């Protein structure tokens, strides 16, 4: 019996998913020493970069990676709002 492997997941093909993952994980690690992580500020910068860079560099790889950076930026904004503060990372209550 033939098994049909889906060519797309949630609308993305596998190469695009790989680029998004690369952007999400790699972008976070590269940007953390410079702009921090998990804050409103880092989220805003990541979203701005993901918006602007594909406009300047028209390339499918850059486009895919920047989707990952955008997702990471939105994650930072959500975390920033729930934790409170422009530069505030997670408060640990003991």
């Amino acid at each position: 019996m033939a098994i049909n492997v889906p060519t797309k997941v949630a609308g993305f093909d596998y190469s695009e998913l790989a680029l998004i993952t690369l952007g999400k994980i790699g972008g976070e690690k590269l940007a953390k020493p410079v702009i921090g992580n998990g804050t409103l500020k880092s989220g805003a910068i990541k979203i701005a970069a993901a918006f602007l860079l594909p406009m300047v560099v028209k390339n499918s790889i850059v486009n895919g990676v920047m989707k990952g950076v955008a997702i990471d930026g939105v994650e930072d904004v959500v975390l920033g709002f729930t934790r409170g503060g422009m530069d505030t990372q997670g408060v640990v209550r003991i």
Partner: protein
Amino acid sequence: MTVVTNRYQKTLNATDFGLTADVSLAGGKWTLVCEYVVPAQQEIAVGATEVIQGGATGRPAYIRFDDTSGQLTGKIRIVVADANDQGQVVTEHSTAEWSASETDRNSALLLHEDLRRAQQDSKIQIWMYVAADKTIDYDDADVKISLPVTVYTVRR
């Protein structure tokens, strides 16, 4: 949900930490010297951050313990522990660093506000390590604790 209603900085001293008796320190071990229990409706973070000339910096911290013959040397830790004494080390430095200066920012140990907040009934503890058995003479004139903290008043 926890709602922060106010935030301010203050300095905990030896009286706050309840240092009212001599403390025996066993050599080669960490010993709990004293602790401050967080009052109701407060959360407290060790350290305090203030902006000076556009840069965020910590406030000076000073801890000095003496026995009858002079200053004790070793290491001092600040620990934030829950009510069951399960703690995390917030900062650890040598006695020389802790007693460098009370007010001079160029030489004092500066403590930024830590991200960990001790909740009501949790504790801020001072631990000390000495190489050989010693006793802290609590009423020695040079014994001093000056630990900046940031207080959050909270409602749940």
